[in-house]
């Protein structure tokens, strides 16, 4: 052991950890290491928890060594800047009702990188607490959450800024990705599915970008609340079924851009509440129960060049006032004609049907969906609107799908 301390000089060293090496535990390796060293963890099982990394280190696993926390508590806590964690297989994080134990927690640190890590049987997965300028890349988080009250989130960001979360797979936890008070975050190419509550959940987080993620079969879809200037681009929201379920819930969101997303087979594609100045462009709404449900207090939103295809209802609207713009969308339910051949229908399309108004009032009537009687009264409402907002029209509906 003294020999090891002697060679300890300015150069970055590599310390190997394995059952037959001189150093057999990661904790000990961290203790022995100097700043900017690399700890190479060889294949094997390490029963350790509360590994505190308080200096800039690279911890690298070879052939996915297993770190088994034996349900004792938190496993790795990063307390220093410039830490890299790579290629570990972490299981059995302790569950607690008073502390949020995580597999990997970053506390008030900068320039960290967490990549190629596999987490299973966890409480919280990767927990970033007041962290900055980091990257969470290509990790796989597979939980076994059953109840909301005793399960944690896959990737959680709390008061963290300038972080990239990319190419992660999160399944079977409470919220797949959770953000609170976190600004300038990029969330890209992640797959969040089968989670108990939300695939993505964020509040009070401004200027964030969500790009090309897939959210599938989550308890209640994706919830986006109380945030400004966010961008959602090219995401896929799929199969979020249930009475309180939706592709995306927007609540108190202002000045956002929602572009090129696909909403498929959700009970509600987008549920909007108190959200203003949002541009919805080039999104696809396919086979949803309701493509868009507007619950009120939504002003100056514009819906342009979206495709609404085979939804049971294109739009539900619960007030008579409308200040939102619908223009040049493609509606598969549109039955008008285009005599001047400019690709836009000559008769305006009314996306709100009388039937959706009735279903809003008496939900049981949903069972009369697609009945001839409903078609007849929908038609009469279309001819002379009484119950639905009469200025809510798409004056230039597209004749062909927008590509």
């Amino acid at each position, binding site marked *: 052991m003294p020999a090891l301390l002697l060679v300890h000089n300015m150069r970055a060293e590599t310390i190997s950890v394995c059952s037959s090496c001189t150093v057999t535990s990661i904790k000990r390796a961290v203790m022995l290491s100097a700043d900017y060293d690399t700890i190479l963890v060889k294949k094997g099982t390490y029963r350790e928890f509360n590994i505190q990394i308080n200096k800039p280190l690279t911890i690298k696993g070879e052939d996915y060594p297993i770190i088994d926390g034996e349900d004792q508590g938190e496993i790795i806590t990063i307390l220093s800047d410039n830490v890299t964690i790579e290629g570990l297989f972490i299981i059995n994080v302790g569950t607690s009702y008073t502390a949020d134990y995580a597999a990997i927690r970053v506390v008030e640190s900068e320039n960290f990188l967490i990549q190629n890590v596999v987490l299973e049987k966890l409480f919280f997965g990767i927990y970033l607490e007041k962290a900055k300028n980091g990257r969470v890349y290509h990790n796989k988080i597979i939980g076994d959450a059953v109840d909301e009250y005793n399960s944690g989130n896959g990737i959680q960001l709390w008061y963290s800024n300038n972080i990239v979360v990319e190419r992660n797979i999160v399944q079977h936890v409470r919220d797949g990705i959770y953000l609170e008070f976190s600004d300038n975050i990029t969330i890209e190419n992640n797959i969040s599915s089968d989670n108990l509550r939300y695939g993505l959940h964020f509040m009070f987080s401004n200027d964030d970008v969500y790009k090309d993620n897939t959210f599938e079969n989550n308890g209640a879809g994706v919830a986006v609340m109380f945030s400004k200037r966010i961008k959602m681009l090219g995401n896929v929201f799929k199969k979020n079924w249930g*009475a309180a379920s939706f592709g995306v819930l927007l609540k108190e969101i202002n000045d956002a851009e929602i572009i090129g997303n696909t909403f498929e087979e959700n*009970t509600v594609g987008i549920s909007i509440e108190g959200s203003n100045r949002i541009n919805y462009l080039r999104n696809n709404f396919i*086979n949803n129960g309701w493509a868009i449900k507007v619950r009120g207090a939504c002003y100056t939103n514009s819906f342009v060049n979206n495709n609404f295809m085979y939804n049971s209802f294109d739009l539900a609207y619960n007030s008579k006032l409308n200040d939102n713009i619908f223009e040049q969308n493609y509606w598969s339910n549109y039955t008008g004609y285009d005599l001047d051949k400019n690709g836009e229908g000559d008769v305006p399309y009314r996306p709100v049907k009388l039937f959706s108004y*009735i279903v809003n009032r*008496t939900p049981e*009537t949903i069972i009369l969906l*697609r009945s001839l009687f409903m078609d*007849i009264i929908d038609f009469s409402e279309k001819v002379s609107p009484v119950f639905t907002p009469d200025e809510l029209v798409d004056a230039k509906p597209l004749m062909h799908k927008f590509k």
Partner: protein
Amino acid sequence: MRSRWSYVYFLFYLLLGFVLLFLNNELSKAVITLMNVIIVLVPLIGTIFGVMYYYNSKEFTELLLAQPIKRSSIFLGQYLGVAGSLTMSLVLGLGIPFVLYGLFQSNAIWDFSLLLITGAFLTLIFTALAFNIALSNENKIKGFGYAVLAWLFLAVIYDGLFLMSLIVFEEYPLDSLSLAATMFNPIDLSRTLILLKLDISALLGYTGAIFKQFFGTGLGLVISICMLLLWTVLPIWRLGHIAKRKDF
């Protein structure tokens, strides 16, 4: 007579299938349009053909009755002849264009087969109802009137009353009532069966536990199909029953 009309019917569906696919360019959209046709048109045609056939062949039937043949086999034979040929026309007429259009490579195949199955059921049910009405009415005009009225009631008026009652009693829990009301109308029943496939995401938006159990599990499918079978068997049974007792 029977064969000529069933060819017309077959050609009509063949044409309808091709036109639908030509206009929609997409199988899944064509399936949705087709659903409206099946739910409205198939019962109407079944009703009219049933009544027409019965009255037209009445004299021949009376002649047959003089022969030593069992009454039930005469009437059931007539019924099965009409209903069977109508069903065949429907299934082949719609099936051929969709198959040619690449149904087997498409994921709309289950939706489509369900449509054909409900269409076949509706033909059987409404032809049987029409025979029943015709057997109970000597007067041709009256029989026709009742048959068309029966169709109109089940296709449109029933849903209107249904909707009114749901709105009037909206303060009460209505989910079991509305499901029960659906069971008493074969058209609503087939509509529900198709909704289970096409609009399941909207149906699951309703909070009621009974709805959830009915639509969310296979239960809805099983119960609907059982009820449709019952709807088919009961009128046929009554047909045989009346035919045995009736004086000609």
